[in-house]
């Protein structure tokens, strides 16, 4: 089988993590990286043999012959970069939140629908062992029809006043808790329950950030009668590590899941699945599947291996495509509009 020639744009935290993970794939060669920081490119150029480094991604795309690109820049740049990738027929993996506007996302979805190339957005929860199992069981009807849910995320990311610099300080560039963190909680709802038909009661709070929000809460409504809430707060210092929790109440039971485990309450026992009536606890150790190389969690490896293997085997990358990324942006778009109409 051929070797996949890969380029990386953006060497921030995610660019560096993805580089390390996918460099372990025997059929991938990382040919080039682009980042405006001289510090980064000079470091990488010095220690990584055979890697071409660029300050300007335009130059990299023009000069290096690539099959695929990992886009890990500030979100405000994603649209422009991916448009260029499409023109060059490159497969694209892009970090969440895909783009910063629904209209731009729609354009990219169309481009990649037409060219048939592999496209993926980095909503990594979809590759987490526990959430994969939760989805499977919900689809199999284990907890019956979904009636109500709450999707929550907490972290101690911003716990003191932030200097107003860089892309994180403006929403246009993809800053704020909605784009940076709640997008995960919203995507998890889309993945497990489906995309809401209406968004109401949104509120945004700023605590330490001046121009962007630190807390978001909102209510999602569905035509079929389901409803639920999201609450995301990245200024909660009682959480040592970022935590993603979802609770789903259904007609036959209830499911509580986070990245590390799941609790299920069932109204009736399911002996064939070894689940009892009442509470059942499923630990990550019961459902995990090992990955070839571990850097930051099985899900990070799994998502990039799915992307590269889809390209190498001429398949579609199906777990989190651009269309899925667009659905999350559509919800975010409704959420901001709702919040605007709610303000005093």
């Amino acid at each position, binding site marked *: 089988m051929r070797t996949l020639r890969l380029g990386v744009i953006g060497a*921030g*935290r995610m660019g*560096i*993590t993805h*580089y*390390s*993970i996918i*460099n*372990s794939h025997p059929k991938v060669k990382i040919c080039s990286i682009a980042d405006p*920081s*001289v*510090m*980064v490119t*000079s*470091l990488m150029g*010095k*220690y*990584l043999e055979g890697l071409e480094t660029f300050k300007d991604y335009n130059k990299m795309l023009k000069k290096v012959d690539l099959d695929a690109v990992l886009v890990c820049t500030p979100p405000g740049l994603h649209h422009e970069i991916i448009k260029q990738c499409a023109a060059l027929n490159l497969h694209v993996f892009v970090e969440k939140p895909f783009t910063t506007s629904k209209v731009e996302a729609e354009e990219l979805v169309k481009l990649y629908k037409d060219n048939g190339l592999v496209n993926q957005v980095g909503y990594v929860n979809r590759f987490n062992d526990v959430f994969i199992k939760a989805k499977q069981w919900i689809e199999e009807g284990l907890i019956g029809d979904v009636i109500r849910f709450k999707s929550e995320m907490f972290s*101690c*990311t*911003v716990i003191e006043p*932030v*200097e107003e610099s*860089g892309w*994180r300080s403006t929403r246009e560039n993809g800053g704020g808790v909605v784009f940076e963190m709640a997008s995960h909680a919203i995507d998890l709802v889309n993945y497990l329950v489906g995309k809401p038909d209406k968004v109401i009661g949104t509120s945004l709070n700023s605590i330490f950030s001046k121009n962007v929000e630190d807390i978001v809460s909102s209510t999602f409504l569905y035509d079929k009668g389901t409803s639920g809430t999201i609450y995301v707060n990245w200024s909660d210092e009682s959480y*040592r*590590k970022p*935590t993603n929790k979802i609770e789903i109440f259904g007609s036959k039971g209830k499911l509580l899941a*986070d990245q*590390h*485990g799941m609790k299920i309450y069932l109204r009736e026992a399911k002996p064939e699945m070894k689940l009892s009536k009442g509470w059942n606890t499923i*630990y*990550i*150790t*019961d459902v*995990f599947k*090992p*990955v*070839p*190389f*571990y*850097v*930051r969690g099985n899900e990070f*490896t799994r998502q990039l291996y799915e992307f590269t293997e889809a390209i190498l085997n001429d398949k579609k990358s199906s777990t989190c495509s651009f269309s899925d990324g667009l659905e999350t942006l559509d919800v975010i778009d409704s959420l901001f509009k709702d919040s605007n109409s709610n303000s005093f």
Partner: protein
Amino acid sequence: MDSIDKVVFGDNQFFGINHMSQEKAQLLAERFFDIKHIYEVYDHAFECGIKGVMLNSNDRAKEICEHFRSHKKEYEFINWYPSIPYPHKYANMIAEKGIFPTINEVLFKGNTASGVLGMLTKGSAAILGKDAIKLMKMLVDIEMKMFKGLNVKVVFLQNIVVDLILGFEVKEVFIEYCEHVRKKYGAIPGLITQNMPHLVSKLKEWGIEEVVVCGSFNKIGYLMSPDLTTYEDFAKSNDSSKYQLMAMSTLASGAIRPKDAFEFIGSQNIQSVVFGASSYKHIKETTEILSSTL
């Protein structure tokens, strides 16, 4: 290479870390909010014959080190196994500020040695950027400050750093780290990893020997990449005079009963186990099983 302690006492239980349950982690964090309770648990561990202590360089570790330093006579027997850096400190700062502003802040804030101050100008930051090795050594020294005066046996680099650099395959960082730990701290270099077989094969390729390699090792293959069989085959053929193996996550966060877990470890070619527990009963049980199986 010096032999390491067969049983090393870990610290996750003190700092609100429980991979299985956030609720349990929180309860433990509350109990250990009063640091006296941490010292009590250490005393229980020493009573059970433990002499090795692994401690991550987090904020509370500073206070713990200070305690044992000021009671050094009573605790002369302890071999310390620091693990650096404290990843969450960096993770949060990186998320907020970016990687290089974080490094700048860590290096320069509160570390105003005159030699370091001179580098603060923009141009010299770029020069520092070109020399990752120098940067790495400075970061190691900052993290190691709190362990000064304690009997340090092994200095471990945390898996988040080891596995990231392993993915990049930058052998210079590993070579220089090991050299730095040996020379400056007179200790054995240690590497924590979730990719043990792959790491050791790379260390061999790069000619790095006499290292302690610590990684998850349990009978269900949890946090063992690529898989359990590869680990078992690797351990069987491993030369422990070059790479001493220390097993962590032996209970797979509680998924395996201690007796089964340690019988499995005892059947493998493993030199040492690091475990954490917070009750006297668990510590005693674990050390007893370990001394009969290892």
